[in-house]
């Protein structure tokens, strides 16, 4: 079953076609890597799925529900979580507070006012803190964490949010090779069973996690298939693998 499906998705920013007529689908439980040079429309696609931008044409279905043009917070409540390119935390709040606001199910004003941490929630918090190896830094401010720790805290927030579909926008930017590898493992272990879309440039990382790959180019679908097929695809090599030096 497809968890996510877009049909004829297009978006234009004052004449510039960021995405044109894109048909994209993701199976439940699948991990998909999206490749493409800068300006290919990768982040735009993620903005459309999460409701940050509204499409000019086309539809997006999530779990057979039409979410086209819905507000970001509504889409998030349906079960789509997103990690941005680079750390995007609540800087002057502690690690614990960052995780706490990420927990789902207490979105309304009333619930947030009379919220009490249940035992299950506390246990879950401990569990997540251990998984992202920040259990000794619960009261540290997010701004004082190292770059890698920040990225992992974001992963932890995704776990707390507990979405069915996870979107990771370049999760390894600015990481060392070792950190990148560790992040790859983290993604495979922590998010097992969830559907994941990863945007990534780092080919070592892509080889580590990828099965099926989608390549975008100038807002259009260029190729889709297993990683080996894609790597040997002539068109892909032309536009991306060779031309783009930072891959």
């Amino acid at each position, binding site marked *: 079953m497809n968890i996510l499906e877009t049909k004829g998705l297009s978006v234009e920013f004052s004449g510039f076609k960021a995405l044109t007529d894109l048909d994209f689908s993701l199976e439940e439980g699948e991990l998909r890597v999206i490749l493409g040079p800068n300006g290919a429309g990768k982040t735009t696609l993620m903005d459309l799925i*999460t409701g940050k931008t509204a499409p000019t044409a086309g539809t997006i279905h999530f779990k057979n529900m039409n979410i086209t043009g819905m*507000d*970001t*917070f*509504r889409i*998030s*409540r349906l079960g789509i*979580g*997103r990690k*941005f390119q680079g750390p*995007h*935390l*609540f*800087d*002057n*709040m502690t690690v614990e*507070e*960052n995780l*706490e*606001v*990420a927990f*789902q199910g*207490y*979105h309304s*004003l009333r*619930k*947030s*006012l*009379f*919220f009490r941490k249940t035992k299950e929630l506390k246990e879950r918090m401990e569990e997540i803190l251990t998984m992202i190896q920040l259990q000794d830094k619960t009261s540290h401010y997010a701004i004082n964490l190292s770059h890698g720790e920040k990225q992992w805290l974001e992963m932890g*927030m995704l776990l707390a*949010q507990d979405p069915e579909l996870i979107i990771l926008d370049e999760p390894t930017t600015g990481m060392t090779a070792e950190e990148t590898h560790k992040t790859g493992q983290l993604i495979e272990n922590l998010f097992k069973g969830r559907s994941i879309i990863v945007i990534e440039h780092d080919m070592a990382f892509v080889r580590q996690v990828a099965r099926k790959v989608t390549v975008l180019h100038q807002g259009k679908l260029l190729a889709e298939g297993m990683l080996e097929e894609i790597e040997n695809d002539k068109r892909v090599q032309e536009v991306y693998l060779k031309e783009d030096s930072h891959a």
Partner: protein
Amino acid sequence: MKQLWKNHTVSLLLLLYLALTPMFSNAFGVELTGKFIVLMIFAIALDLVWGYAGLLSLGHAVFFGLGGYMLALSYSLQKGVPSFMARFQITEIPLFMKPLTSIPMAFVLGLVLPSVIAFVIGYFIFKSKVSGVYFSLITLALAKLFEMIAINNQAYTGGFNGLMGLPRFPIGGKPMELDSYYYLVLAIAVVVYLFAHWLMNSRFGKIVKSIRENEPRIAFLGYNVAHYKIFVFVISGFISGLAGMLYVPMNGFFSPNEIGLALSTMIVVYVAIGGRGTIIGPAIGAFLINLLQNELSEQYPAFWQLLLGLIIVLVVLFFPKGIYGTLQEKLGAWLAQFRLRREGK
């Protein structure tokens, strides 16, 4: 108990000082300190909006003034048509002011009206996703607008001169004693402080803080940011209205100064000097600056404003997070180091 002392040391010391003030101060001193306490409540109200949600309101006196005017007008109407109205050949209290002839009704209106106005402003601003400096500019314009309304409708508001000769909370016809009224204001200040503390340490408070820290991000976690902003703005409007009403009997008169730009800016300064997002910080800021203002204007009547301005600039330079905020940070770091060293040995 120990926990209470540890978390609220400064607040408790300040409370002790304020509670003892009437015992070794003359009537003038008590009245003055009472006014400071009212401004401390007001500063806490702005801290919720600016310190926690990151929304710099440059027109918060609108809510303070609305509350104050409700009660002040009500007092003025107690003995029939007041003189400022009679001057405009008004012989009967106009229909729309009739509700204000009842003091309890005016009191309710003084809380409800600022909250409703805050809701309406908040609804249109936050639903339309206006933020940052544009929010500040709109609130700034509102402060000027309300100030002009108060000045230009002399027949109904007393105009530029404001409303004078207001009594001190006449319960059953007799005005309250100064000391008892002082303690009433102090008690309300404590309640407001505790409420603000509870609110900002609840999950709601954490979400409000995360709006300040990273507004785009919090929507991706499923929160309707507009609802949270509107709610915190309304709460702040309510508390500001309350402060405005408490100010009336303490001050004895109420003028357009208390609804317009001057007070709106001063309260922003109090919060900045005391320390944004700390609740007690803004209260301390309000207290210290007023104390200083009072001392300086007595000692140096010619150039006290210059000195006050200089001190404010220095504080902003050397205490970027406000007096309380910076001390808390420095002291916290020092204490942590101290503890580490002791554990190390």
